């Protein structure tokens, strides 16, 4: 007599696979109330995951755009004659981290200020002959983090002697925005973590109820000589199936609503869209949708097995 496993025949592995799948579907349908509860749970968690991710990547993207858009302005004293501007230009362009330097004449500065006002640009009209704005060089660095060093250099004696009176920089703005971004990342990570824990608890509970109602069945299976994995597979598949459906629905719903929400925000808060644009659906969903669906499937399967453990000790 042999009390040990023998090599399994391939055909029986296939047979078993069909049996597991059939059992999982039957069970999910039979316990439809529980299944619907679990699907809703996963749906909510997956939606939160997708929302958190979308918010985080959009904040990061907007920051990147803002950071590269806002440069440094080195303002030149009115007393510096035009002939010396070339010298200053060359000195700035020679700085290692500097990518571009543009001269902005006082008139150009005034015009762009008038543009930014949209309406009421007639306020500026009278100023053309008595321009309060000074000439400046607009300096763009390669990397936002180099700004501080460049600003320091431009404020140094060398440049002050040449006639740079003031250096205006976006550093403060970018630092603030970076702080916002880090905070948003942390909040999103916490939301994702908490919802993951919550969903494991909720799904485990739902499946535990399913399992408890099938305790007899499991005991009988074990008496007849079913291995633990044979007992587990249908439940595991049921959990995966439920998790997969919940997460897929969440991915579909958010893929449809995402552009609508982006549009609504852009309409409402046009100041954001003036400086930065949100990521399009095609750049967010090919990454997060598969992650959400796979997480849903794994979460469902793992919770199911977690719920089973107690009953396999027969």
């Amino acid at each position, binding site marked *: *007599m*042999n*009390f*040990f*496993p*023998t090599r*399994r*025949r391939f*055909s*029986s592995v296939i*047979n*078993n696979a069909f*049996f597991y799948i059939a059992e999982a579907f*039957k069970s999910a349908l*039979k316990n439809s109330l529980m299944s619907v509860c679990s699907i809703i749970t996963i749906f909510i968690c997956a939606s939160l995951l997708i929302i958190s991710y979308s918010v985080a990547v959009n904040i990061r993207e907007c920051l990147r755009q803002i950071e590269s858009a806002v440069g440094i302005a080195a303002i030149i004293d009115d007393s510096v004659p035009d002939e010396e501007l070339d010298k200053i230009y060359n000195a700035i362009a020679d700085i290692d981290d500097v990518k571009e330097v543009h001269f902005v004449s006082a008139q150009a500065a005034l015009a762009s200020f008038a543009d930014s006002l949209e309406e009421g640009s007639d306020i500026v009209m009278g100023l053309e002959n008595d321009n309060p704005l000074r000439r400046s060089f607009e300096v763009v660095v390669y990397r936002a983090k180099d700004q501080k060093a460049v600003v320091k250099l431009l404020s140094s004696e060398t440049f002050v002697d040449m006639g740079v009176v003031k250096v205006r920089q976006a550093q403060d703005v970018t630092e603030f925005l970076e702080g916002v971004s880090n905070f948003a990342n942390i909040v999103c990570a916490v939301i994702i973590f908490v919802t993951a824990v919550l969903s494991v608890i909720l799904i485990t509970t739902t499946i535990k109820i399913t399992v408890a109602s099938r305790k*007899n*069945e499991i*005991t*009988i*299976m*074990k*008496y*007849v*000589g*079913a*291995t*633990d994995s*044979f007992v587990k597979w249908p439940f595991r598949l049921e959990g995966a199936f439920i998790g997969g459906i919940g997460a897929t629905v969440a991915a579909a719903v958010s893929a449809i609503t995402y552009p609508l929400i982006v549009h609504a925000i852009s309409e409402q808060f046009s100041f954001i869209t003036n400086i930065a644009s949100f990521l399009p659906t095609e750049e967010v969903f090919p990454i997060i949708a598969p992650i959400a669906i796979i997480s849903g499937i794994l979460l469902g399967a793992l919770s199911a097995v977690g719920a089973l453990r107690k009953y396999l000790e*027969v």
Partner: protein
Amino acid sequence: MIRFKNVTKIYDTGIKGLKNVSFSVEKGEFLFIVGPSGSGKSTLIKLILKEEEPQSGEILIDGQNIANVSHKNVPYLRRQIGVVFQDFRLLPNKTVYENVAFAMQITDATHREIKRNVPATLSMVGLHKKARSYPRQLSGGEQQRVALARAIVNRPPILLADEPTGNLDPDTSWEIMMLLSDVQKQGMTVLVATHAWDIVDNMKKRVIALKNGTILRDVKGGYEN
């Protein structure tokens, strides 16, 4: 086939289920285990199934000490042993056919083997006409026949029955016992724990009488008062 050597089982509560029990059953033998409630009949059966572990002594099946079968391999031990219980323990959502087929599905049986063995076994217990019924549509005696079919469909060398007639009327009980006897005639080793004294008296098989966890009598070839 089955051999108990000085087996003692003490439950967590301190109650002794079995005390120093020794006996052996030959291949193809039919054995009744009788005794008052709490005498240790179910304990003995649970020990063979490795549902409980003895504190001391050895249980050998086909010469192998089942203490050496790891938890992981217990299912493979159980596939060599068919079991029937007082409360039938059928899966309520499966038909008669599916309940019996289930015992084959958990093994490496193919579709063809299942299609061949299940109807044959159902015929043997006289239930081939009820293959599509659900357990709740059957009488107690019929349900026990299904349970018996499930226990023997894989042709295990050993069949254990724990009060198989406990929920049945005398006539039905007799029919079930006759089926168990048929199973033995096909070469299986059969152990039946029971309260049904009249049947035991009539069947003239070997009887082990337990009391308070010890063997009171071991009478081969029939019970004579």
